[in-house]
């Protein structure tokens, strides 16, 4: 199985707060991996490090065998965005999120961030923009007609796969919560990712919607041949679909393993329920 995502020694410090502390994890191709942990454990920060929103204080992120984010502040710092690290320099690699998305990593947001003045279809279509080859001149004078047509068809196809074709022309933000989540996933899929990062996809959903989502995530993983890495609080969903689970507590990974292993791990139970000091 090919490795898709590797995080090595990632540390993210905000002043004195260590949000993510020396995190190591790997996600293999075709897996569904979950990252869980109590509130404030640093899960979303870990996502932001992976997607380039934050530059880590230390550590390295590798995506499909290529180092995409790197910072080793020990010793001399050099900005070498494209050059090879010859072992002489410490290496700061800090791409903006859009570059990481173009490499094939797409994400959704914990608090839905759809483009509010756009319809569902436009939301998905705009996400296709990063795969456009036309420059602005040829796009303005409609010389990219074939590409535009193809992109529109792809978006329509995506909407029908995700069951959104009947709300195609609605304003995205006018939809019910569950469907907005779907639009966000559709938008992420439109960027043609290899790895899909879902930040609390079931937040604010009722049990029935959560069940639907569980089936849905498995389905898109198979349909689009994706690897899925997700943060979630709904344990039912996590235990149902995850191949492996990582548990984060106060920025530190405290456990990893299959759902059964995690359910029986004493440290995880302690982290969630608290340790009794009476004994």
């Amino acid at each position, binding site marked *: 199985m090919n490795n898709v995502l590797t995080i090595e020694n990632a540390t993210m410090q905000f002043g004195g707060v260590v949000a993510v502390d020396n995190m190591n994890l790997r996600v293999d191709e075709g897996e569904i991996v979950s990252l869980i942990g109590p509130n404030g454990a640093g899960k979303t920060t870990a996502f932001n490090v992976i997607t380039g929103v934050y530059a880590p204080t230390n550590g390295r992120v590798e995506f499909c065998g290529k180092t995409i984010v790197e910072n080793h502040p020990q010793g001399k710092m050099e900005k070498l965005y494209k050059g090879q690290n010859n072992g002489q320099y410490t290496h700061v690699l800090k791409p903006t999120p859009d570059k990481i998305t173009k490499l094939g990593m*797409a994400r959704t*947001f914990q608090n839905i961030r759809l483009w509010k003045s756009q319809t569902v279809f436009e939301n998905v279509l705009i996400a296709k923009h990063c795969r456009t080859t036309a420059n602005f001149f040829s796009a303005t004078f409609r010389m990219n007609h074939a590409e535009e047509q193809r992109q529109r068809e792809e978006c329509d196809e995506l909407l029908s796969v995700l069951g959104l074709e009947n709300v195609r022309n609605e304003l995205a933000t006018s939809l019910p919560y569950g469907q907005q989540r779907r639009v966000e996933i559709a938008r992420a899929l439109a960027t043609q990712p290899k790895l899909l990062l879902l930040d609390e996809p079931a937040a604010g959903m009722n049990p029935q919607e959560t069940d639907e989502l569980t089936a849905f995530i498995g389905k898109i993983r198979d349909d689009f041949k994706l690897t899925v890495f997700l943060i979630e609080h709904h344990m039912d969903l996590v235990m149902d679909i995850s191949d492996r689970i990582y548990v984060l507590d106060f920025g530190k990974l405290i456990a990893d393993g299959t759902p059964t292993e995690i359910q029986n791990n004493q440290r995880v139970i302690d982290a969630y329920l608290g340790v009794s000091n009476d004994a």
Partner: protein
Amino acid sequence: MKKNNKTKIVSAVLIVALLAVLLLLDNTKGVPSMLLTVLRKGAIYALVAVSMNLLNGFTGLFSLGQAGFMLLGAYTYAALTIPVESQTSIYQQYPGGGVGFSITEGLTNAMGGFGLLLGVVICLILAGIVAALLAYVIGLPVLRLKSDYLAIATLGFAEILRAVVQYAKLGPVTNGSNLLYGFTSFDDFKIGSLKLSTVMPFVFSGLCIAVVVLLINSTYGRAFKAIRDDEVAAEAMGINLAKHKRMSFVISSFFAGISGALLAMYQASVQAVTFKAAMTYEILLIVVIGGIGSISGSVIASFLFVGCSEWWLRFLDNEKTLKNFNAKLIFAIIFGLIVAGIAVAIFFKQKKNGKLGANVPCIGTAIVALAAIGWDIWFVISPNLKLPLLRSGFRMVVFSVIIMVVVLFFRKGLLGDQELPDVLHRFGAWLQSRFGKSAKGGDAK
């Protein structure tokens, strides 16, 4: 597909009809010169407003540098088209000044009327390119800023540009703080004896606006709108923020440069002092009144604005004495009826909302209306025949009040972020649903 073709034919017919009407206005004697002024200046302001809307309304970058880029465009155009023989007299403060050639003159001599058009087009594009280049350079540092800070920085750059152009060392090109004049203007466009002074501004600015519309509906325009709606999401979906913001800024400045050149052609002279920050505010006003994010709104608002400031509200600046008591009485009655009408309308609305009673809006309306009518009665009784308030500068007061009303009550402007055809279409549908099939009015398509 068929409907699409129909729309195309209708718009082509409308454009031809518009140009024909303009041509007719240009060549008919007795057409009020104010009408022509409003049409010409309105067309040019429409282009600036659209260029500003591209930046402020579609990309969400609040920039106030428009006047600066217009200034650059105007000077570039003027410097390149002043006829060679008049350069010595125009640049008399700077002996040996002037670029030493004139693109339009050269091409006119070589190819006649077509050469003139070609020369003007080349110079307009050059004017745009100069503005765009500078925008690129300014954009590198400035576009890292957001909202108000960006506005302040761009405003500052525009003011710096205005000062630099008047710098004496640049005099041989810009003529310092003196006028540049004598260059090719709209009056030079003629077919035989037919004047084209009003047609040409519409043609040039219409073409530019068409390009902006095409851009906005392209994949890049959609990316701009995504940046406006949510920057974080846009970046996460693979839109390079720096690149797209810079692109929008440069394109907007390109068209601002062209519109500056058009304004120079319209005024037939260029002087740096006219491109003050106040000009940017006028354009911002047009954009806000028309609706931030609406191209057709900007176009309509620019004609309304120019019409009001140049023509319809002019009377507010002139003192006026009524002829006799009867005229005064008629004025007073009309004024009283308007005040009463507005008050009654407000009361009706309050009653409809079930809020009629002793609350602030109702009592406030009553007090203001009574005061106005009381003043009205006093005005009739008093021996004075001069209309009050009308004096130089009152126009700007009225303007300010209009802006406040727009900002307070119609925050979305005339069209919000919608376009005229959509609005007309919806209006037509509404009419149909309301009055059945008998009403065919308002059917835009």
